């Protein structure tokens, strides 16, 4: 079977090719197409019957002459060669080099689809990862093995935030050197791709990064492969080589749209907004490859970045993502318009695993309470601001006016920070106390009396 070439393509459309008169081809099998110019394209069997086979072609079906297309079925799933040499390299969405250097040669080739982790074999994420961004470290902390997406919108600086996280992310303590990054750009613009590459080069982290780039003008079907290739590389680095791997995938919206495009071509019944019913399962297959495994040293921490179509958090992509990931970092237009960077809207943001990665043994003992207090005080401050917008700031009580000042300072000083500003978690917490000290003692019920005595800088009310 592997050595036979078939020239029986009967139709081609939008990246899908129908083959007829092909005996028993395995579902999911990898396919090689040779077109009339001798160019090799690769693909995958997505539906198979005794007489007809449906193949998706990663490089697309443009300029494919059906009569002069030869197809080979390789009888194995799509595999990625893996090796330590991947570090510092740049690949395209199917794992071929795009940095002008030779391809990775390795006897070890992994099925890009992976296999589901046995829930009984997982280990729970615990240790703190410092991103150097106060809004994340202080209030929505990331832990090793967590999946924490960034929800953004068109025109918001999610790529700059993602790049800053990649540049600054580190583990506290002696394991710092074992930290590497796998970066997947899905449907990225050339400008964005260059921005990421230059940003990593300038800060000297490039040799610790593996990049998979699928650009906006490259075949849509390859976008379905890009995150799988990246996660396969990450699994190898984490669970074979014991690295702590941070995977950043941007933009998952482009991925989901590619999935929808293919689903429509296949004739799948659409569920919400034209996305296929299996969008949830498909995203889960990707996201759930993050995590830790018992008796393995390494870990995969995942930050998918997605732009919410018209800033709608209830859109199927952010919605289904939120149900799979352990929280979300939400970027907001309002803050961005005020020139605040990173524009993290903290109230709808959440890190579900934060509680297990911060506090006494990880960051500082007051961290959980400070985070809770910041949330509560800022929520209250926003209520006051809403009120002030109606009745005017003059009619507010003294205490309410203090909240207004707090909100302003919190947004400018705590959330806002420089793109190159790397704050360690102690700086973040001290800054939090500076701000909380603008409020009187009795307004701070989420922190303990001892913590107030130790850290509160204001006068005792």
């Amino acid at each position, binding site marked *: 079977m592997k050595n036979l070439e078939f020239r029986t393509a009967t139709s081609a459309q939008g990246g899908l090719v129908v083959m007829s008169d092909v005996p028993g081809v395995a579902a999911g099998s990898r396919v090689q197409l040779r077109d009339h110019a001798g160019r090799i394209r690769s693909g995958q069997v997505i539906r198979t019957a005794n007489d007809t086979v449906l193949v998706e072609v990663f490089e697309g079906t443009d300029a494919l002459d059906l009569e002069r297309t030869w197809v080979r079925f390789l009888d194995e799933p799509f595999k990625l060669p893996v090796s330590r040499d991947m570090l510092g390299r740049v690949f395209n969405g199917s794992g071929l080099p795009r940095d002008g250097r030779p391809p990775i040669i390795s006897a070890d080739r992994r099925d890009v*689809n992976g296999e589901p982790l046995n829930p*009984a074999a997982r280990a729970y994420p615990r240790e703190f990862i410092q991103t150097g961004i106060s809004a994340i470290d202080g209030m929505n902390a990331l832990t090793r093995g967590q999946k924490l997406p960034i929800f953004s919108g068109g025109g918001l600086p999610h790529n700059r935030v993602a790049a800053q996280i990649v540049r600054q992310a580190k583990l506290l303590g002696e394991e710092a050197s074992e930290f590497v990054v796998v970066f997947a750009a899905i449907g990225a613009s050339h400008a964005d791709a260059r921005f990421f590459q230059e940003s990593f080069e300038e800060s000297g982290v490039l040799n610790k990064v593996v990049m998979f780039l699928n650009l906006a003008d490259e075949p849509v079907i390859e976008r379905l492969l890009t995150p799988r290739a990246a996660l396969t590389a990450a699994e190898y680095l984490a669970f074979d080589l014991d690295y702590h791997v941070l995977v950043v995938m941007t933009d998952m919206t482009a991925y989901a749209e590619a999935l929808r495009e293919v689903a429509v071509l296949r004739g799948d*019944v659409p569920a919400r907004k034209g996305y296929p019913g299996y969008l*949830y*399962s498909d995203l*889960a297959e990707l996201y759930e490859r993050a995590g830790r495994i018992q008796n393995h040293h390494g870990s995969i921490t995942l930050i998918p970045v997605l732009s919410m179509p018209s800033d709608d958090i209830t859109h199927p992509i952010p919605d289904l993502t939120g149900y799979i990931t352990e929280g979300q970092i939400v970027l907001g237009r309002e803050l961005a318009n005020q020139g605040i960077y990173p524009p993290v809207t903290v109230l*709808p943001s959440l890190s579900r695993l934060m509680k297990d990665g911060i506090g006494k043994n990880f960051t500082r003992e007051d961290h959980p309470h400070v985070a809770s207090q910041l949330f509560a005080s800022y929520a209250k401050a926003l209520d006051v601001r809403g009120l002030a917008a109606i009745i005017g700031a003059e009619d507010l009580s003294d205490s309410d006016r203090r909240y207004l000042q707090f909100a302003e300072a919190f947004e400018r000083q705590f959330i806002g920070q420089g793109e190159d500003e790397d704050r360690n978690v102690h700086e973040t917490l001290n800054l939090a106390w500076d701000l909380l000290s603008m409020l009187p003692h009795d307004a701070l019920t989420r922190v303990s009396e001892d913590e107030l005595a130790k850290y509160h800088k204001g006068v005792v009310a």
Partner: protein
Amino acid sequence: MGIILEVNGPLVKLELPQTVIGEQVRVGRIGLIGEVISRDGNTALAQLYEDTAGLCPGEEAEGLGWPLSVELGPGLLGAIFDGVQRPLQAVREKSGDRIARGVSVPALPRDTRWHFVPNPERRAGSALVGGDVLGTVQETESIQHRILVPPLIHGELLELAPEGDHTLKDVIARVKQADGRIEKLHLFHRWPVRTPRPYKQRDHAVAPLITGQRILDTFFPLLKGGKAAIPGPFGAGKTMLQQQIVRWCNAEIVIFVGCGERGNELTDVLEFMPKLKDPHTGRPLMQRTLMVANSSNMPVVAREASIYVGITLAEYFRDQGYDVVMVADSTSRWAEALREVSGRLGHMPVEEGYPAYLGSRLAAFYERAGRVKTLAGEHGSVTLIGSVSPPGGDFSEPVTSHTKEIVQTFWALSKELADARHYPAVDWLESFSGYVGSAAKWWAENIDSKWESARAEALDLLGASEELQRVVNLVGVEALSSEQRWTLESADLIKEGLLQQSAIDDADSFATPEKQFALLAAFLEINHLGMKLVKLGAPARRLIQMPLMAQARRWKNQHPSDDIAGLKAKIAAIPDAFEPLLQEYTHPAAPSITGAAATGASTS
């Protein structure tokens, strides 16, 4: 024997004559398992519980002759199964950290020896019917496993094994059926998951399920044998609330079904559960718990099956006379699995892509909850708590709206409350319970006859405050009268001092009904005393500044449930805190300038 004709995602078309719908099939060289969902002449369509990559048209397929069934017998408790009852620990020993396809491990260990004690009432020659107790096995310290005659068997007992150690392979009884066939019974039997297990009759649910969570027990009670739903958008604390229920509720057996949820979350459950002590016996909680775990990245068809596997296990323990709680997290993931498969089958979608049979399937599933008289004549119950994950928190979506019509208790989680870190974020305006009347009888008999009226009064207060809050949002708090401000403050006290409950604070995590009622009554008393003062002319501002108001908010953390005496002492001192102000305003001739300071005299 049949062959594979076509492979499309998890669906496989087979040439398999004479199969019946629901029959289990084994497909292909790697031996993937699935079930037949439709048949047309000699071809059948099967959905497989595992990824179909590598399956090839032309490969063999065979019908196994039985529907998807579970094994019911000793060895269930403490186990963790996947969506089709494969034991995940044993699978791990066999196939490593990742779940290899086609791996086959029996659900219950075949080599473990169980100490069987025959039921003295059963003798050779006596008549047996399905559901009768043949004997017992002390499966864990906490739970005695009753070995049942399978429901459909009845006849004459020919032989029963004497007391001794047996494995599941051993025959422990022989029964001569009415038609003369001799049936060999083991310590376990099988039951098809999509068929509800029979019982004698349905009974009224009478006792509330105590979860120790104040907003649930006090405000929106659930009865043992009842149906409840927890709808909530992501990030509203659904998982935490469920874990609290699993941990603290006073059921004898707890079954947790993780259906399409996060792997790390399941790990959290799998890691913390074995460490937990059963609050009622002090023994490990796992001794009375079992889990069905099918994380979101595991195959979709097994996800669809997982809640049926869970509910069948629950019914089995119910039939032994136990009170069982099953938590299904999440029924939305189950419904989506249904949608995913129906989409691939090309069924006409109705709402949001869901098939037309969504509502009837959901209703039939929830109907498997209930308190019953078992075939053996005892009482047992299955309480069903299903979580719902409405897309975007929109409660009008199909799964939530269907569920709302079916369940009696509805614990609605609110994103706004969660954003303000008010946990558990159960929205007191959206939630409801149809069991208040029955629960009131229990509270009146066991705790206090004023429970029902106190609960209603507190809910009124919360409702009134919600309206006032709207006014405040428009014109500011200064525009309210003193009475209104005091209402607002009292409602805040109830929210912070009673409704908010910390899962991670040992003193607060669980509250006995006594503590719940004591706090409720105390806050209502504060409200009454304050209102009396306001009516006498005291400004609400002075009342709000009383140290008591801040102190009362911390009582829940300062007094664990076993320190009711300490709590009651503080409650008894409430009138003292109001006394100085009361003096001042009942004798207005002698105004005290230091009034505010004097109120600080109460204990903290």
